[in-house]
């Protein structure tokens, strides 16, 4: 399977040729205009649905804005929900640049969280919190990296489809987590909800100063920026984009396609594992079934909406976090089920993916066609 990799050449900005600037702008405008148009079309379709169930879409969108971004409280709520999506979005976007569709990020989140919790247990009280948190993060990242890297390894060396193997690995991961938290790592005090022994309060990952949002948000934003730098500015990233565009060409050029595949899937898993660590260290306080909350699956949505561009993941994740955060308010004020948010996400997702077909169809975005007809 192939994903259209974005291999557009770097802009050649020349002061002598003002039309080059215009052409560069036209090329850059295409994804922005098409994405915004798709979002508007999706919202319009969703409005029809809301009218059909007898509610006012205007009221709904007002409430969504209030619930997602209307106050400092709701903005912080949205940002908190966006934080894990930044990392799980990267878990899909990075392999996608190589033409791989990884849909099992959930498994890396779950096992990353378990590994982080397990690594912390013997160290609490022995080492200071800062060092324990770093060890937890490393443990979660290694575990996640191994899990998704395995899908890349199987892909390259055995030809096993990575979409299916990563999905299977996610189910296996959840079973492994249940095995461990019901068994060796179970805190005997956790009766109704089997969990590992909770982290003491001073060992938890705290909030960003001045905000009621944990450090996971900052970690996620940094991860997105680092990923963008790797993909867009390094030779490794360039090689990955070539391999994603045309594997044969990459092989003929002597690029190490196997190492790229394993490396990028492992890096992707590292981020998802880190999301699991943050969930344990900042939100849950222990590893339990809440780790499998679907962040891995929503990450697929985030990555595709961002067209696998790590920087675009940041606004997309915040937007989805905001939609998610407004669910409660919609339920209380309009009497609509909490699944309203799911319907909206699904509608937007379908319409935006559908609009992929519009790329290259508008002459105004393609300067190569300007001269021909003029």
């Amino acid at each position: 399977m192939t994903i259209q990799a974005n291999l557009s050449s770097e802009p050649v900005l020349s002061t002598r040729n003002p039309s080059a600037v215009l052409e560069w702008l036209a090329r850059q405008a295409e994804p922005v205009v098409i994405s915004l148009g798709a979002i508007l079309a999706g919202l319009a379709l969703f409005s029809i649905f809301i009218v059909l169930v007898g509610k006012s879409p205007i009221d709904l969108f007002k409430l969504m804005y209030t619930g997602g971004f209307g106050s400092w409280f709701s903005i912080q709520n949205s940002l908190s929900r966006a934080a894990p999506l930044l990392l799980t979005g990267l878990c899909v976007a990075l392999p996608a640049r190589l033409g791989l569709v990884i849909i099992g990020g959930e498994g890396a989140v779950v096992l990353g969280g378990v590994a982080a919790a397990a690594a912390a247990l013997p160290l609490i009280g022995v080492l200071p919190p800062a060092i324990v948190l770093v060890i937890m993060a490393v443990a979660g990242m290694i575990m996640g990296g191994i899990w998704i890297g395995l899908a890349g390894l199987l892909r390259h060396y055995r030809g096993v489809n990575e979409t299916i193997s990563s999905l299977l690995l996610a189910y296996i991961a959840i079973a492994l987590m249940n095995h461990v938290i019901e068994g060796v790592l179970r805190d005997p005090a956790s009766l109704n909800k089997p969990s590992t022994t909770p982290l003491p309060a001073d060992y938890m990952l705290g909030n960003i100063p001045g905000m009621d949002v944990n450090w996971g948000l900052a970690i996620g934003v940094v991860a997105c920026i680092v990923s963008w730098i790797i993909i867009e500015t390094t030779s490794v990233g360039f090689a990955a984009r070539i391999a994603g565009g045309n594997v044969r060409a990459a092989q003929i050029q002597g690029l190490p396609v196997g190492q790229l595949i394993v490396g990028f899937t492992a890096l992707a898993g590292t981020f998802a594992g880190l999301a699991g660590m943050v969930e344990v260290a900042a939100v849950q306080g222990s590893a339990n079934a809440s780790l499998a909350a679907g962040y891995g699956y929503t990450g697929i949505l985030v990555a595709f909406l961002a067209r696998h561009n790590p920087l675009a993941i940041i606004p997309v994740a915040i937007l989805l976090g905001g939609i998610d955060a407004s669910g409660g308010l919609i339920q209380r004020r309009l009497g609509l089920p909490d699944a309203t948010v799911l319907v909206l996400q699904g509608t937007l997702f379908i319409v935006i993916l559908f609009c992929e077909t519009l790329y290259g169809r508008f002459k105004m975005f393609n300067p190569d066609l300007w001269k021909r007809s003029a």
Partner: protein
Amino acid sequence: MEDGIGIWGVPLAILAGAIRVSTPFIFVSLGEAITERSGRINLGLEGTLVFGAMTAYAVAVMSGSPYIGVLAAMATGAIFGLVHGFICKFPKVNDIAIGIAMMQFGLGLAFFLGKPFIQPVAPRLPSISLGGWSDLPQVQSALTINVLFIVGGLLALALWWAFRNTRIGLILRVVGDSSDAARAMGLNPDTVRLLATAAGGALAAIGGAYLSLYYPGSWNEGISSGQGLMAVALVIFARWNPIGCFLAALLFGGAGALGPALQSVGVTQGYYLFYAAPYVLTLAILIATSSPTRALVGAPGALSITK
């Protein structure tokens, strides 16, 4: 085990579990097999299945007949398939991603519209008792078989026959193996795939109807445990062969029943690990039979996921 069948209770419980749990797997995997044989993959059957479960339950509550519920579910499943097939015929649209989007949309819509139907009780689909020859209650309950299980088995046979011997079956396979060859024969691959995805959706929705109208026999938001998602793995496991799908579904059901069966005779070690058994098995078989240099044996040539 206190009834004196002792350790024999384990294989019996696995058999009973396999028959009871496998029916949704049979329908989703047969549906996915039809779609994939046409050269397209629909990853959204989880959404179709859950929406089918909701529709079947709601219609059965309102009409009083579980059969009308199943038919309504099939209709909605076909509509979901048509939407998927229609969108995927446009260039540059990724069928896998659309599948995931349809899954999210189907789940959301099912939870949204199904809210009022969590409380009411729907009439259940009938089952047939084939265990009358035995005095043991365990055997009798194990051989109480739902009509849909039998329909699924017959459907697998019929599809297996139809793929080789009927005009429609051959058209489907030509389109699945090569769009160009199909076009050269004057066939429109997009239309064939559209209809194949619709048929796949209708079958997946029957799987959902079984969940809500027979076992576990209620409608709630946690009704599916990923049966629709597993369809893709099942079909590959079964090598796109309908009879293979039936057997693979039984195997998946049996593997899922292994943990509870062993627990009933006192083996509690690794209870949760047994839930992973079907997935580990599928992965192991994929690893053993895949090769980096050639496509999977029996795979439709135009299918994106095996390239």
